[in-house]
């Protein structure tokens, strides 16, 4: 196999890093090792994901058989499903908590938390994060916020139910709906803690990438994964505090009688004292985070995909500089497009024009990325590992979902599809499914590094193909019921006979949703089984160039037993030829980053 490993295995236990005695608690629970923290994020995220997906299945069952009793509801929802018929408030609660869990707890913390933590130190050649302690605090804050969010499901009047966007006044007034009582308080507390966790994590990632790169690892030699994580962290630091301020102001409106978002309200036979606030202000604050959040979710997935597609194509990623520029452009533009969620919010239509313009601008770097992925596949030697399949799947759903964004981002066209199932289909494909594919791709690819064992590839294939078919089966037809003007967040559509002919399609979508959810069990089984019984992983199973594969199989706090490797090249020297037309390292089609330039090899200027 001509493995060029060199660095780690030859050296015995060298110093430069001292080993402290680890107890069970410091190793597995309050660990400060980024690798362990990453695994904690991953497993917490996957559990939250299972809950979130289960909720979506409950919603789908309700939509397929509106108002009909179901034993599953009776068993799972208890008093919220008297005689097995789901309560409308519970439907809205499911909508809300499903969205919250999937967006924040799975795709932000589960994806970025896992892979930023795991890969940043390993791929830039650092012993750990800049602050292992803050990193640990970040995870445990995340854990607490997750526990509070789950806990809120059990309060008497129900969990928050105003949609994951929690627009006031609905979210501010317990009179308006039961879920806006204690449930919403817990939601806000949970999110405030989550934001603190996210900020600690992000600051750590930024400092680590800037300061702790190993010798030779210039910014232009960083793998695209790191670029993506780095920029994601910056977006998080810029936008999450704004959500925190929105949450704080909302808490004040709810509990301390202020009127930031409330004005002129008559509810349950009484006029409220609130005067002068504006719900539209909340929408601005919320979406100032809410839109960048889409990219916080998506960029890490795209970074992971870049790495996996290059490795498995045995080709350099096409247009490295363009990819970096796209990431930066997307990051910048993502903070000035939030208004496209608010075209019909009542804000000044002129603002709508501005946001249409910026929104459609963001399609350009996105298109560049998609084309570059496709070109990377061209004339490659594609190794169809499960991670590669999920990466190709990501590009596919990213295109399908992204294209409909051109309709939604156009203020004129948004008028009639706003808040319909068309939107639901769009964002599930472009950010939900795509980011989940990124998560799965990352797990399949770095599982050997995380657990020193291989996942079963055949189960991986089954998982991918069932998910790929199911995801399109769910979300492609959904565009069409949206085009019919079917509003989202409706408990049932039976009050509008006009929608009667959509019922079959809704059932069809539900069947696909259930099948796809069940297909995830292949992953769960594979994941758990492989941790304990998987085949022992070779040092560099995918023959990858990045530094994480040079550590050897001992998991020590500090990553490399000996010296940290020095970097001599970028991460994408796959199938590179020397002047004689042979691979630069004879017999192997890749040249890892820590291998110095060979005779007769030119370094390309990237």
């Amino acid at each position, binding site marked *: 196999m001509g493995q060029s490993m060199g660095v780690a295995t030859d050296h015995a236990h060298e110093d430069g890093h001292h080993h402290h005695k680890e107890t069970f608690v410091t190793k597995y629970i309050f660990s400060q090792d980024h690798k362990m923290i990453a695994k904690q994020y991953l497993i917490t995220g996957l559990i939250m994901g299972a809950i979130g997906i289960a909720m979506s299945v409950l919603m789908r069952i309700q939509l397929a058989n509106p108002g009909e009793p179901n034993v599953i509801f009776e068993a799972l929802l208890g008093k919220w499903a008297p005689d097995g018929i789901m309560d409308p408030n519970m439907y809205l609660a499911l909508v809300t908590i499903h969205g919250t869990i999937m967006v924040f707890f799975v795709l932000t913390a589960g994806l970025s938390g896992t892979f930023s933590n795991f890969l940043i130190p390993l791929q830039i050649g650092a012993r750990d994060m800049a602050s292992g302690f803050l990193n640990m605090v970040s995870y445990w804050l995340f854990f607490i916020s997750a526990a509070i969010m789950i806990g809120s499901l059990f309060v008497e009047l129900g969990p928050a139910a105003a949609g994951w966007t929690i627009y006031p006044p609905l979210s501010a007034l317990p009179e308006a709906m039961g879920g806006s009582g204690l449930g919403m308080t817990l939601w806000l507390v949970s999110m405030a803690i989550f934001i603190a966790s996210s900020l600690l994590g992000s600051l750590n990632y930024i400092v680590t990438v800037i300061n702790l790169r190993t010798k030779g690892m210039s910014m232009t030699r960083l793998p695209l994964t790191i670029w993506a994580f780095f920029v994601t962290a910056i977006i998080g630091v810029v936008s999450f505090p704004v959500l925190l301020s929105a949450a704080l102001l909302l808490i004040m409106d709810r509990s301390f009688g202020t009127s930031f978002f409330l004005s002129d309200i008559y509810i349950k036979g009484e006029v409220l004292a609130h005067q002068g606030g504006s719900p539209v202000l909340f929408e601005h604050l919320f979406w100032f985070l809410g839109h960048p959040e889409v990219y916080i979710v998506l960029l890490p997935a795209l970074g992971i995909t870049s790495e996996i597609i290059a490795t498995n194509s045995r080709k350099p990623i096409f247009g490295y500089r363009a990819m970096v520029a796209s990431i930066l452009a997307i990051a910048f533009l993502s903070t000035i497009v939030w208004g496209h969620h608010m075209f019909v919010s009542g804000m000044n239509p002129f603002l709508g024009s501005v946001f249409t313009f910026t929104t459609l601008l963001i399609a350009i770097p996105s298109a560049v990325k998609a084309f570059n992925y496709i070109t990377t596949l061209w004339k490659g030697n594609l190794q169809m590992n499960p991670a590669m399949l999920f990466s190709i799947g990501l590009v596919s759903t990213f295109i399908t979902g992204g294209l409909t964004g051109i309709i939604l981002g156009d203020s004129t066209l948004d008028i009639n599809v706003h808040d319909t199932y068309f939107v639901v289909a769009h964002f599930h494909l472009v950010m939900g499914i795509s980011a989940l594919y990124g998560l799965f791709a990352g797990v399949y690819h770095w599982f050997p590094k995380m657990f020193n064992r291989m996942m079963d590839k055949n189960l991986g*294939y089954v998982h991918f193909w069932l998910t790929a078919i199911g995801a399109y089966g769910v979300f492609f037809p959904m565009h069409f019921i949206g085009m019919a003007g079917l509003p989202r967040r409706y408990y049932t559509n039976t009050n509008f006979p006009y929608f009667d002919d959509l019922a079959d399609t809704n059932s069809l979508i539900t069947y696909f949703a259930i099948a796809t959810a069940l297909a995830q069990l292949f992953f769960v089984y594979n994941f758990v089984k492989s941790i304990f019984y998987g085949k022992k992983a070779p040092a560099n199973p995918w023959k990858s160039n990045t530094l994480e594969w040079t550590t050897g199989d001992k998991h020590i706090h500090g990553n490399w037993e000996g010296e940290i490797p020095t970097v001599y090249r970028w991460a994408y020297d796959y199938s590179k030829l020397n002047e004689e037309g042979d691979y630069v390292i004879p017999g192997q089609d890749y040249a890892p980053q820590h291998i110095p330039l060979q005779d007769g090899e030119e370094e390309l200027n990237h």
Partner: protein
Amino acid sequence: MTAFLIIFIAALFAVSIWQISKIVKLGKAPEPDTELSEVANDKDNKRNGQMMLAFVVAMYIMMIACFIGYQDFFLPDAGSEHGAEYDNLLLLTTVVIMIVQVLTQGLLHYFSYKYHGKKGQRALFYADNDRLEFIWTAIPVVVLAGLILWGLFSWNDIMEADTDDNPIVVEVYAYQFGWKVRYSGEDNILGDANVRFIEGVNDLGIDPTDVDGKDDMVAQELHLPVNRPVLFKFRSQDVLHSAYMPHFRAQMNVVPGMVTQFKFTPTVTSEDYKSTEYMTEKVRKINEIRRQKSKELIDDGEVPLDPYEFEYYLLCNKICGESHYNMQIKIVVESDEDYQNWLDTQTTFEETLANAEN
């Protein structure tokens, strides 16, 4: 058609499961148990490459099937003046999107098949091509610029809520969970209103001291004369709602504490809209479904469903609480004469107050 689609998709699903089981078998069969046995080998590459090709073909078929099978899901021609413009822009954008979709998905999956890994196959070291990248940056720029420009011109036209053409001013009032309509009466000016005036019969909070409000009329249905511009003023008494009138391509959020607006001109009366070929066919289909369902209901000893007749509607499209899913009001577009006759039957705010006192 839907039944056919379901069967078709189920068949595809079955085929894929069968294929997958084959992969699993093939993957397991002769291979020696080496260190790398969980890394894709040539057989996996080939098999999955073929699956990619099959997948994109199935995807094309699905897309075509959806566009054909679901064509009557698309909303019928708009019943408003700006709606035609909207529909044209939507059509153009959809065509552009679908062209890009078909091309890129085709390339993505075809390359995945064509270049699946083989032992000894050499990948091309191809890291950059400025010209290529320039081209595919420029193409989206040009296409999007076109779409943006058209979109922005339409947007400005649609959102321009001036009163030069003497529109009828109508207030649409939202509450948990229903709508009311306030007509501005002969003066065409809505009287001042605030939730703090809500009392007794004055459930929209019209200022009783404002003379402009005396001739206002509150109604439970939204009647509009055909071919006259209408300026809607939206007001909510409690939480956010959204007034969505899909057949007029009109939507605006209803925000407590402020008045939002939208202006459009209805161009097709309810009667004419009902009798279009599209709508008669759609209603026939819906009634077929309802008859089927009613049969089942009667068998279960329950009340059958009423047959359906199309009416324009306005529905709530912003999550607003428990009964969000049933917050609607009927819209009637009629001739100017019918509209005036209907309006004459409504009571003015002044009369309402007087009646309440008696």
